[in-house]
């Protein structure tokens, strides 16, 4: 239902303020992501009723309740599947999916892979803190080897996933990494991700100040290097992006790793949607068509 905006209508930060204040721990990286999303929506002037923010379960998945858009706070790991349904039923909507590393790369890993290859037009923001927070500190799929948690008290012996390389391999058409403490940079990436016509993946370092004492703000700050500062880096180059994605240690790239614009988003590739979003169409099928369905069986 795209409602025409009156000329005076302006999306402001106040419009996007949720019904309740975020209940994240003081200092949580997720505050920075929420602020950057709000700034991006204001800068892009997208009316809040045309935005659906969809999440799974976890600290960061409480996000939809803290922003005044349409929201869906779904099941653990299932946000991308729900979001795909929303987008296909009404592709006029701007769909944001927000969640954590456990939600997206652990329990939701299967949907993550398939939503990328389908090129569903949405922005998926993972607030990646390398730990399970809401369940009080267990190893996550992005926890480093050796990290001690309540579930691996003698240190993690499993290799972590590399979300950026995974997204490249799975065929995501926009892939970026942000840092919650880099507000301007993050806001810019969110804007680009929303505007990209296809699946946009944004992995955001969003430190957990309560349970992850390894990957802190202090740990990230000297390491993150913006890809945008390297004039020679071309985000259209998939191989270069894959190489950059493997960097981890003293230097960790953030910024836009990869974007391609030559592939249609899923809804744009589907002839059934040529005449507009499903929810706006006629419910009834024309009688001559239904007659043909029966005739086939006679």
């Amino acid at each position, binding site marked *: 239902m795209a409602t025409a905006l009156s000329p005076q209508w302006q999306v402001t930060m106040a419009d996007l303020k949720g019904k309740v204040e975020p209940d994240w721990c003081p200092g949580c990286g997720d505050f920075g992501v929420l602020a950057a999303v709000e700034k991006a929506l204001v800068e892009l002037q997208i009316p809040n009723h045309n935005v659906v923010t969809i999440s799974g379960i976890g600290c960061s998945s409480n996000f939809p309740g803290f922003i005044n858009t349409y929201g869906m706070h779904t099941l653990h790991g299932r946000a991308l599947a729900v979001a795909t349904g929303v987008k296909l039923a009404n592709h006029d909507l701007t769909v944001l999916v927000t969640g954590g590393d456990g939600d997206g790369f652990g329990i939701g890993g299967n949907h993550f892979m398939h939503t990328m290859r389908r090129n569903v037009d949405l922005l998926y923001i993972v607030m990646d803190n390398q730990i399970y927070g809401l369940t009080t500190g267990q190893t996550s799929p992005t926890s480093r080897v050796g990290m001690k948690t309540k579930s691996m008290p003698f240190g993690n012996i499993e290799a972590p996933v590399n979300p950026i390389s995974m997204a490249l391999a799975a065929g995501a058409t926009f892939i970026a990494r942000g840092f919650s403490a880099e507000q301007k940079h993050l806001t810019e990436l969110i804007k680009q991700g929303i505007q990209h016509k296809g699946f946009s993946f944004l992995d955001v370092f969003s430190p957990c100040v309560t349970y992850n004492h390894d990957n802190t703000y202090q740990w990230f700050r000297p390491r993150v290097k913006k890809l945008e500062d390297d004039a020679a880096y071309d985000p259209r180059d998939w191989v270069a992006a894959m190489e950059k994605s493997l960097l981890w240690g003293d230097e960790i790239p953030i910024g836009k790793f990869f974007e391609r614009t030559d592939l249609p988003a899923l809804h744009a590739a589907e002839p059934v949607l040529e005449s507009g979003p499903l929810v706006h169409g006629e419910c009834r099928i024309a009688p001559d068509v239904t007659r043909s369905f029966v005739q086939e069986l*006679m």
Partner: protein
Amino acid sequence: MKQTFAIAIGGAAGQGVATPGDIFAKIFSRRGLHLNAYNAYQSIIRGGHTFLTIRTGPEKVTNMGDRIDLLIPLNQDSVDRHLGLLTEGAACVYNAETIKPGAAVDGVQLCPLPVSKLADITRNKVAQNTLAVGAALSMAGVGFKALEEVLTEQFKKKGDAVVAENVGIARAGYEYASANFKPFPRPLPMTENRYAVMSGNIAMAMGGAAAGVKFYCAYPMSPSTGVLHWMAAHARKAGIMVRQVEDEIGVVNMAIGAAHAGARSMCATSGGGFALMSEGLGLSAMMETPVVVIDCQRAGPSTGVPTKTEQGDLWQMLGAAFGDYPRVIACPLDIADSFKIIAEIFNIADRFQCPGIVLSDLLLSEGRLSVDPKDLDFAPVIDRGELITAPEANGNGGYKRYKITMSGVSPRAIPGVAGHTHTAASDEHDEDGVLISDEFTNPTKRRAMMEKRMRKVAGIAAAVPPPELGGPADADVTLIGWGSTKGVIEEACEILTEQGIPANQLQIRWLVPLHGDAIVNILKNARHTIIVENNYSGQFARYLRSETSFVPDGHIRKYDGEPFMPHHIVNAVKEQLAGKSKLSVPEHEVLV
């Protein structure tokens, strides 16, 4: 007894059992005859043993029946398995060069076809099948023209030469049978009626299209895959978005997403896939987003017997997802009903904003039935319930998605409508959608929201009619069944009544809400009650008892993977009325 004629075709998968079956089905339905087809098969693409039974007649044919009139074995294995089932008056048409039939009982006509003399088998690998079809129709008293017409349609894409070759082979079989075999005493009649022949899966898919389903997604799983196939093939004509998803967890959640955005959404699976969807059903209930899930039951547990039928998923449906929530569960009574029930359950799911489950089974999903096109209403009532799709003129900005109401139903705004932003959450929430699960849980609010949702149960019960007794009011025995067993129980009742044991039937179509009081009112006057169901533990009997304390006099159960045949029920009823047993488990004599 009504006039019916049953043809059975047996062979290995890949030998071409399906094509003759399709040809017979077309010819019978175009002759104005009803038909029922059931294919007993296995989870194999080539080999094994497939046994297709097509039963036809001028009156409604609701099940495979007890008798095979004509057996067409395509290999030795098939004749070995099934010749013994033939009784006086039946016939067996077979390839004399590859099959040795052995001894049949007196009065069974053995009809050997000299296949290589009648057709060039080096050119046409399925010549024996086409010859047999021709021979069968000659013996059944059907004119050759009907067969010529169907074969022409079937092969016209391959060119005139192929059409001519196949028609020629069929004619050779037809003429050979006319000259050498004794025709059946009662030729197949003709009527003015014309029927569509369809599977339950096609019926449910078309029923969805008629009901305004705009989003369908699925993961392939027998025996539900036919719904996906129809939907995919007709998506563009019907304006339906059809997606194949990575798993059933994704399926149900994607369907819920599309439903939340305002599209009627449906998905189908079998028991294993349904198990994966369970958590999603709870999401549908908690967010109050209506979605319809079809479960086509197959023999379980686990992978079970993927190609065999059972009514074994009832308790999974009753218990799907944790916590208490309103749900609707309906089981179609036959294939035509599989069409009709979809619009009905969508209206209830939409009005009461809750999940709806359609409980079919392999027998209905993959079985085929002649359906009068008049019974396929493509303009059924569509009631979307209290759905807000545009900003309200007098909206005062105080929209509460989960407003507490007497009915328990709160008007549902779809995303995109200005002034109605809210969050739908899987967590418990307040009237305005704000979570009460985490920061400050609140027993008063939790109780109020729980009661709000559960108040819908009364409305749902009022929206669904109670079941009614079928057959004579005064009967010695009342048979109780649910869903797909309607036809076979009905025929068993007719046979029993003819044999001097008046029998009637209570068939359940709505499992939730059950209308327990109405059921007990009907059954309290019954002389002898028997529950008939296709499972081991009496799932419906246990459910009925848990809801009403009603205990029947006896049970007839079958859990060998094959459906009931009328005589299974008739014999078991006689055994139980004679006091020999309270639990009968009929033996399936057809080895498939």
